[in-house]
């Protein structure tokens, strides 16, 4: 058994490894040597569920076990949103068009997505994380950071806690995850990927700088293949190589990501685990089962989506001022148009009206495959002087919402009440029933 932190030492041997090879490793490794966290060191874990959607499908449909499974649109037009590890052996990866995935693997099982079920399990995972620390930052449905600093007395050493969390998740959900444990979000995230799936990677404080220096620059989030190529030309393959160049040169030559590399190489890889960050925008979109250029149909979908977006805004006590319409045609050409309103809104009707105006201004000559609507430029209703849940509300001198719009607000409120009580679809606008 080889221990993961050995891999990460900057001895000559490891420096010679190619980027890929340096990251292969035994499963479920645990550092044999001391992994001492000092009192001032942060303890941060990154938890990443393994092939989350695909794993849930296999969990719910055991007959799929061992088969190459992807979750994605059932038609040839969709893309892979998750691939099981068996499917990945065929070279299938997320975001690959389904038809291409089918070409790579004839026996491919394509499961339609069941977002409600994934969300349910995701919530369960997050609940487990919250039982270890209040500082949980959920990045996406299947990924989160957790700040475990100061939990030693409760749960024992950080590395033990990492394994415990992993076991807890597996006991409760029968799903596996990979855990990266270190002193910062950046290092934790990069390390959780090292022993994927079902692995734990621990980079204790004294190994962090060595680990960072030996990292291929492409592993740094935000540095894409293009930047990587540019850096390679200057002989910068690993983060540690940046020390060969003068900081001034790096800043001038590589701008923003150069600056970031310097920061990282200097060990400044901060970033607090922020339990909640307010959303920047709220949007919904739909891909049609069949492309369409029928304006009526597009409008109908737009109305349904606008209602959904409005409802989600209201649930979060938020309003937004910018409405964005998104259309993608059969040739995947994307059009987005935005308009900024005089006053922030959370009204489905207002969002729909503005989005439809945007659509009317576009000449729809080709068939469309996708339509979406989003609201951004958000602020909490409170900041804007609107009341939420019993707070005082600043009165307005002029009826700014225009005649009759107060009634739409009331209608939204009533519909929200019905939907909260009887569930999705219990009430909708007449037009959406046609």
């Amino acid at each position, binding site marked *: 058994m080889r221990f993961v932190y050995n891999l990460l030492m900057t001895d000559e041997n490891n420096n010679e490894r190619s980027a890929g090879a340096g990251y292969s490793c035994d499963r479920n490794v645990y550092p044999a040597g001391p992994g001492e966290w000092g009192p001032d060191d942060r303890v941060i874990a990154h938890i990443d569920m393994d092939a989350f959607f695909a794993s849930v499908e296999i969990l719910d449909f055991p007959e799929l076990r061992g088969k190459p499974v992807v979750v994605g649109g059932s038609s040839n037009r969709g893309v892979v949103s998750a691939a099981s590890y068996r499917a990945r052996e065929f070279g299938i990866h997320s975001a690959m068009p389904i038809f291409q995935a089918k070409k790579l693997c004839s026996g491919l099982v394509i499961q339609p997505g069941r977002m409600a079920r994934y969300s349910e399990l995701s919530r369960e995972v997050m609940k487990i994380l919250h039982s270890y620390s209040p500082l949980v930052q959920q990045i996406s449905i299947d990924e989160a950071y957790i700040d475990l600093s100061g939990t030693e007395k409760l749960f024992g050493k950080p590395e033990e806690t990492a394994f415990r969390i992993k076991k807890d998740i597996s006991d409760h959900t029968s799903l596996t995850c990979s855990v990266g444990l270190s002193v910062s979000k950046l290092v934790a995230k990069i390390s959780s990927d090292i022993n994927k799936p079902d692995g734990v990677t621990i980079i204790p404080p004294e190994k962090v700088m060595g680990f960072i220096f030996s990292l291929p620059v492409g592993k740094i989030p935000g540095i894409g293949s293009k930047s990587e190529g540019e850096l390679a030309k200057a002989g910068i393959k690993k983060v540690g190589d940046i020390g060969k160049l003068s900081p001034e040169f790096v800043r001038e030559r590589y701008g923003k990501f150069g600056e970031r590399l310097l920061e990282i190489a200097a060990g400044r890889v901060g970033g607090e685990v922020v339990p909640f960050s307010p959303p920047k925008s709220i949007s919904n979109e739909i891909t049609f089962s069949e492309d369409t250029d029928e304006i009526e149909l597009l409008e109908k979908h737009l109305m349904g989506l606008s209602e959904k977006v409005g409802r989600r805004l209201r649930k979060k006590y938020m309003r937004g*001022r910018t409405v964005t319409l998104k259309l993608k045609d059969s040739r995947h050409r994307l059009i987005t148009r935005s308009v*900024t*309103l*005089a*006053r922030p809104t959370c009204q489905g009707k207002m969002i729909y009206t503005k989005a439809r105006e945007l659509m009317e201004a576009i000449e729809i000559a080709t068939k469309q495959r996708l339509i979406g609507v989003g609201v951004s430029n958000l602020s909490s209703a*409170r*900041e804007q*002087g609107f*009341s939420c849940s*019993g*707070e*005082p*509300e*600043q*009165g*307005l*001198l*002029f009826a*700014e919402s225009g005649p009759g719009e107060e009634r739409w607000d009331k209608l939204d409120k009533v519909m929200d009440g019905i939907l909260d009580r009887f569930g999705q679809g219990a009430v909708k606008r007449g037009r959406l029933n046609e």
Partner: protein
Amino acid sequence: MKIIVPLGELNKKMNAVSAVVPGKTTMPILSMALITADDSGISFSATDLDISVSTRVNGEVEETGKIAVPAKKVAEIVKSLPGGDVAIGAEGEILTIKCGRSKFSVNGRSPEDFPKLPKQDSKTEFTIDSGFLGKMIQKTIYAVSTDLTRPALCGVKWEADRGGILMVSTDGHRLAKVEAKLSLGDIQKSEVIVPPKALSTFKAFAEKAEMIKVSIGDNSISFEMTDVSIYSRLLEGPFPNYQKVIPVKNEKELLVSKDLLSAATKRVSILSDALTHQVIFSVSKDKLTLHVTTQDLGEAREELEATYSEDEMEIGYNAAYVLDILRTMEGDDIAFHLDKPDNAGMVMPVDQGGDLKHLCIVMPLRIN
């Protein structure tokens, strides 16, 4: 060009024009001020294309000429000079500033690059006392909206006719209106929306009591003082129908001392919510009680003597709005004209005094 200007005069005028220069601009020439020396004297000008200012400068012209100079830099240099007369010269596009043993050469620009200052297309012209005009501006400028998506509310509406001037401003939560009966002569009625920057620039320059000329055109307004002329574009309307929101049936009158109310509001609002600034006004028989309860912060309460004989009520107001009103009211006592707790409150000075009629409207914070 060669001119000699006393430092005090130079400092004042350079500072004044550089206040008009935009902080950030995509057109570098707008960060310049134009210095002109000709047979009629010396003048400095600056513009941000919306507002232009020209000011006469007292000094000696030894040699006529013109140059555009970086306004903020020159103002900074002038401010740092020790004292005495300052000799300013221009050769080509280089400005020289000499004072005592200090000498500066500053890179300027050709005066030809400087935007031509617009000509006023005047439709309505009248003269008015600068102090009086300043007072009207002070009573309305604070209620202007800063919401750029509602441009008409971002200015003060002026209505001028032969019977006087009316100014009104509102941000949708409160409104300030001041009316002056004046004999402005046989002028054409004019209704325009004046941007606040033009008004604050005017106030900055109008330091001595003098009669000034105001000209209003379709798209612009100008103020002509002895030493300074200010030109500004107007904002486009329509301004909302403010008459409609002035309450007519607010019959419950509350009289209270302005200074006591102001001091009490300041005190209790220390504990008010940082966003809503809510202070509750409780009115009862000859008494006004201000109170604030904010979760996480605490409570404050203060009782004031007042004159009131109607129903008891509790009304929530944004303390900052109330203080703005009190700050601009004349006289010792003010009158609140109230209706229901959710309806607009109207505030006026008890003694209107002189030819001014001043009223403010403030919408309450609805207590849910």
